């Protein structure tokens, strides 16, 4: 009888089981002990097969807990899987497939599962009653911090996450179908068959590793063959249909808008390690025309004192272990049921060779079915009875059964199979906010309203017999396909055995003296008892949503799948309402836990967001550049040379090189937008605050853009290359936003303008070549027929030129550094070559590349605003550009910029600052205060936006915004850096520190 030759009376393998391969033996370890299993086993079935009933300790009271269910609803048997970086806590043993070498550990126990020191939490249990989190927070803080929090943390762990980064890959994928079928039990298979034969694209998702659903768990026959064999035939038929896709190990966890569903495929959870390149899990987005939820049902536990001992299991789960896994979870069983379905377990147990000692049927009237099953199994039948208590330290050993007359007798047992009836697993149907309705005849909540495009079939829809599941599934599959434009006849359906359910009512735990001191659990995972629900109701938490938050009933990894309805029944009694008017809590995605790693997918580490590299990136890397992130861009920050010990030495040298010789910098990251059309100038006039109509061809102009609320949006230069052709530059940061803004302006505000534009940021590599020798260098690059002289190509000139003997390029005489400077744009593919060419031909003139840091120093020396000044809170007036606002035309932001408060002189306005004492450093972010004022918010008059050490001026300089700034040039203010706690004196001046006349530009 026993495959593994174990001598204990509990050795439970039958040698059968439609879902395991008894010919092969694999091994796993649990808490360090090595056990055998068969391929097809779950960790739960393998533990039961090895007589291991104890699976974990409970969350609050550390009570010994065993396996309750055989599916994803499992609240008790949560384990840690694997070791090291792959350790994963809170894994449900009931859905964990055993592979050879699997390492699993119990959770929540110390020092060991059998001897848990914290089991004494039972003594502290008054503090863990309903609302204990809230109540303990009311205690004095030191008491909480020193006593209760450590105690609760120690006591209430739910497994340990891995300490290292997850080494596995996760993937995201999208698929489309006409009909999505969730679940592959009789209803799901019938639905897929009906929809599939119409030619519709069907996706059938089964969260389990095998298809068939309850057909694998029951002994019933379809057309004279075991149901699971019929399921296998149905799968064979489905595989013949080219438009049907079958996805096992795939849980549809959420229903989202527009027929979009989230599904998690456990690609490699059932192997020791994913194959090279194989993801562990794949997150699917399934877009479906129709969805049929055929997700079956979840059995309710019975609520009675001591209902949580290992060996007390759901009756349906017991049948699953017997029929699918070939494991009999006990040798001497008591059945505790309120319906006929639970009686099947007695039949299956007897068939598998176990003793059925008693059937306790809470129904007042003895049913024909109960009579028959009791006779066939030899069980003592207690009609109208109840289990009053259970016994056994680490597992049930006996039940105290109270018969209808009130007499209690004790019956030895190692298994109590309980059935409180079935709940449709309707979570998906409620994800759009629909509440299910209570069906008193079925004693269950059933879905009555659905998200658009969704239906339910079978047990999930309240059809509780196999025949009804098949019929409803086929009809819904046919209808769903028809709704997508695919017609087909109904498939022939197999004949199913007659079944009875016979549930009458759901009863709360009776309130009598005999149960006063026992714990009757409703939510096993959260250790919420019937008494907790009563207490919560007495304290005024009468709504199911309040009950959930106050007691934690229905929270955590199982989301109360086995607990919610029993909680509602208890609450209904306590509040004097019926179940329907007590209501139910809402289910939200995900139906089952989804690992964050799967949601992140490949978007981790450097793949979290894309990296944009400039055309000179590789060249700059070879030069030893340090890089900095500028939005998504990686930009060269500086180019250190041998002997430079500090980045500031490097930056100072780069600045001096530009100011005295020539340097170049990759400015490709600036946004570039090509604008063409008869109305291009009009469009620019409306985008920018300043005038554009009179800009001649071959010239560029600085432009300032506002938002419609009157604050500065962006700035840059725009050059006119032809009568109807402009090329705009934006800041690096706002390139995308400006493009989007222009699209809105053109498509929505002024569709009558005949203008077209496109982003060409990635098409052109652009270089600033700056310094007194810039022209000398360019003469080696630009073809000689173009006159580079100041007279022919003056400041703000723009031209289409050729370089290197005919290569088209664009040349602009723009300067951000304040020196004689050009910007040269070439097709992006030549950017790298141009950098190398500039190094070569510029060598005789002392050329050096410079990075963003030197760029920043030089623009501060010249008082050019950049990101810190264009921070979305400053106006043209604040930047000293108020006079640029044209009064002769409409432009974005014009009306709101004219509001008096936006041009008030007392607004902080752009100034330059230098420390009074040359050794004092100025730091961006510092506050500006009047001299002698206390450093408080009331005296705050502005801030420093940008600061730098200027090698040109040999001292610290800063740009800042100071109230009434332009009127205060020459005044000394205090610069307060609250982070450093420092206050230094600084002199206010104009923001342009170097060459205010622009003499260096115009050469």
């Amino acid at each position, binding site marked *: 009888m026993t495959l593994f030759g174990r001598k204990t009376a509990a050795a439970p393998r039958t040698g059968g089981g439609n879902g395991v391969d008894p010919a092969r033996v694999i091994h796993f370890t649990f808490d360090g002990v090595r056990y055998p299993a068969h391929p097809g086993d779950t960790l739960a079935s393998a533990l039961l097969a090895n007589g291991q009933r104890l699976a974990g300790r409970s969350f609050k009271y550390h009570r010994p807990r065993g396996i309750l269910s055989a599916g994803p609803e499992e609240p008790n048997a949560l384990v840690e899987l694997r070791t090291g970086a792959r350790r994963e806590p809170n894994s449900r043993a009931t859905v964990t497939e055993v592979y050879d070498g699997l390492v699993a550990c119990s959770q929540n126990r110390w020092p060991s599962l059998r001897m848990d020191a914290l089991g004494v939490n039972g003594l502290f249990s008054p503090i863990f009653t309903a609302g204990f989190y809230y109540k303990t927070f009311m205690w004095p803080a030191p008491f909480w911090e020193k006593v209760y929090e450590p105690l609760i943390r120690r006591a209430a762990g739910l497994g340990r996450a891995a300490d290292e980064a997850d080494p596995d890959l996760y993937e995201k994928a999208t698929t489309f179908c006409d009909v999505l079928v969730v679940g592959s039990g009789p209803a799901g298979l019938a639905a897929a068959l009906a929809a599939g034969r119409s030619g519709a694209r069907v996706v059938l998702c089964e969260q389990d590793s095998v298809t068939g659903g309850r057909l694998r768990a029951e002994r019933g026959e379809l057309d004279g063959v075991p149901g699971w064999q019929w399921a296998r035939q149905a799968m064979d038929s489905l595989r013949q249909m080219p438009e049907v896709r079958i996805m096992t190990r795939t849980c549809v966890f959420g229903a989202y808008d527009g*027929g979009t569903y989230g599904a998690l495929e456990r690609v490699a959870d059932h192997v020791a390690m994913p194959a090279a390149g194989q993801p562990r899990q794949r997150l699917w987005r399934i877009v479906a025309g129709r969805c049929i939820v055929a997700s079956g049902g979840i059995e309710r536990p019975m609520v009675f004192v001591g209902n949580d001992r290992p060996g007390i299991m759901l009756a349906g789960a017991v049948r699953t272990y017997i029929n699918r896994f070939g494991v009999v979870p006990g040798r001497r069983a008591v059945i505790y049921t309120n319906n006929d379905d639970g009686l099947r377990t007695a039949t299956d147990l007897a068939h598998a060779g176990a003793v059925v000692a008693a059937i306790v049927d809470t129904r007042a009237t003895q049913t024909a079915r109960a009579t028959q099953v009791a006779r066939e199994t030899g069980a003592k039948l207690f009609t109208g009875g109840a289990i009053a208590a259970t016994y056994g330290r680490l597992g049930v050993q006996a039940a105290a059964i109270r018969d209808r007359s009130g007499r209690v007798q004790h019956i030895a047992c190692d298994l109590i199979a309980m059935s409180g009836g079935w709940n449709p697993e309707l979570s998906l149907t409620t994800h759009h906010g629909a509440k299910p309705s209570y069906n008193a005849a079925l004693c269950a909540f059933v879905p009555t309203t659905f998200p658009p495009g969704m239906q339910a079939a079978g047990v999930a829809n309240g059809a509780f017999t196999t025949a009804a599941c098949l019929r409803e599934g086929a009809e819904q599959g046919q209808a769903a396909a028809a709704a997508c434009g695919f017609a087909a006849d109904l498939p022939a359906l197999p004949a199913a055995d007659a079944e009875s359910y016979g549930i009458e009512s759901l009863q709360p735990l009776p309130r009598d003296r005999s149960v006063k001191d026992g714990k009757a659990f409703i939510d096993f995972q959260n250790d919420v008892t019937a008494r907790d629900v009563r207490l919560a109701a007495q304290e005024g938490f009468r709504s199911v949503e309040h009950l959930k938050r106050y007691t934690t009933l229905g929270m955590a990894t199982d989301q109360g799948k086995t607990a919610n309805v029993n909680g509602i029944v208890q609450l209904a009694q306590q509040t004097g309402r019926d179940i329907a008017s007590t209501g139910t809590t809402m289910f939200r995605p995900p139906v089952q836990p989804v690992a964050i790693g799967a949601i992140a997918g490949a978007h981790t580490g450097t793949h979290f967001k894309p990296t944009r590299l400039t055309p000179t990136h590789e060249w700059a890397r070879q030069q030893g550049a340090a890089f900095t992130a500028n939005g998504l861009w990686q930009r060269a920050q500086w180019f250190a040379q041998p002997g430079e010990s500090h980045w500031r030495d490097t930056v100072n040298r780069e600045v001096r090189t530009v100011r005295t010789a020539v340097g170049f910098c990759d400015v490709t990251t600036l946004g570039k937008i090509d604008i063409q059309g008869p109305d291009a100038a009009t469009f620019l006039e409306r985008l920018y605050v300043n005038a554009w109509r009179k800009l001649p061809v071959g010239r560029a102009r600085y432009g300032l853009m506002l938002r419609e609320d009157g604050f500065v949006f962006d700035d840059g230069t725009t050059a006119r290359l032809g009568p109807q052709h402009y090329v705009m530059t934006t800041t690096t940061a706002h390139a*995308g936003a400006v493009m989007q803004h222009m699209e*809105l302006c053109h498509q929505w505000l002024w569709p009558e303008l005949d203008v077209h534009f496109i982003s060409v940021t990635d098409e052109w590599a652009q270089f600033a070549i700056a310094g007194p020798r810039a022209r000398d260098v360019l003469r080696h690059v630009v073809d000689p027929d173009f006159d580079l002289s100041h007279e022919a190509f003056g400041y703000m000139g723009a031209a289409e030129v050729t370089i290197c003997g005919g290569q088209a390029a664009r040349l602009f005489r723009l300067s951000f550094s304040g020196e004689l400077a050009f910007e040269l744009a070439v097709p992006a593919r030549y950017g790298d070559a141009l950098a190398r060419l500039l190094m070569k031909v510029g060598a005789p003139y002392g050329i050096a590349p410079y990075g963003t840091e030197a760029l920043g120093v030089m623009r501060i020396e010249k008082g050019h605003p950049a990101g810190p000044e264009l921070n979305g809170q400053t106006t043209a007036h604040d930047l000293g550009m108020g006079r640029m606002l044209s009064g002769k035309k409409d432009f974005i932001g014009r009306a709101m910029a004219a509001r008096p408060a936006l041009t008030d002189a007392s607004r902080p306005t752009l100034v330059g600052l230098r420390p009074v004492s040359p050794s004092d450093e100025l730091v961006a972010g510092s506050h500006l205060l009047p001299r002698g004022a206390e450093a408080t918010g009331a005296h705050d008059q502005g801030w420093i936006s940008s600061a730098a050490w200027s090698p040109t001026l040999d001292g610290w300089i800063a740009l800042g915004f100071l109230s009434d700034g332009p009127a205060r040039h020459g005044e000394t203010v205090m610069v307060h850096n609250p982070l450093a706690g420092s206050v230094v004196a600084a002199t206010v001046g104009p923001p342009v520190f170097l060459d205010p006349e622009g003499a260096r530009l115009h050469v």
Partner: protein
Amino acid sequence: MRLNCPCCGPRGVEEFTYRGDATLRRPAPDAAAPDWVDYVYLRDNPAGWHRELWYHGAGCHAWLVVTRDTRTHEIADVARAVDIARHGRENTGS
């Protein structure tokens, strides 16, 4: 959520950027300050059908006017903003 872009067909919402109320009309340049305040700052927050601007930034770059029920995310209509700007405004009486 999915939007049926008139240019690209049905696409996932992650391709789009939301902007907001599509019933607002930019005031005339010389409109009174309260009109501009209404336009720039004041927004209704309807529970029910709403016409709103979306941008297909990861697609065709079209601005779209989406008619959406804010309670259910049901989409009744998706139109190109430029078509409404050119032709539809006469009908909406702006």
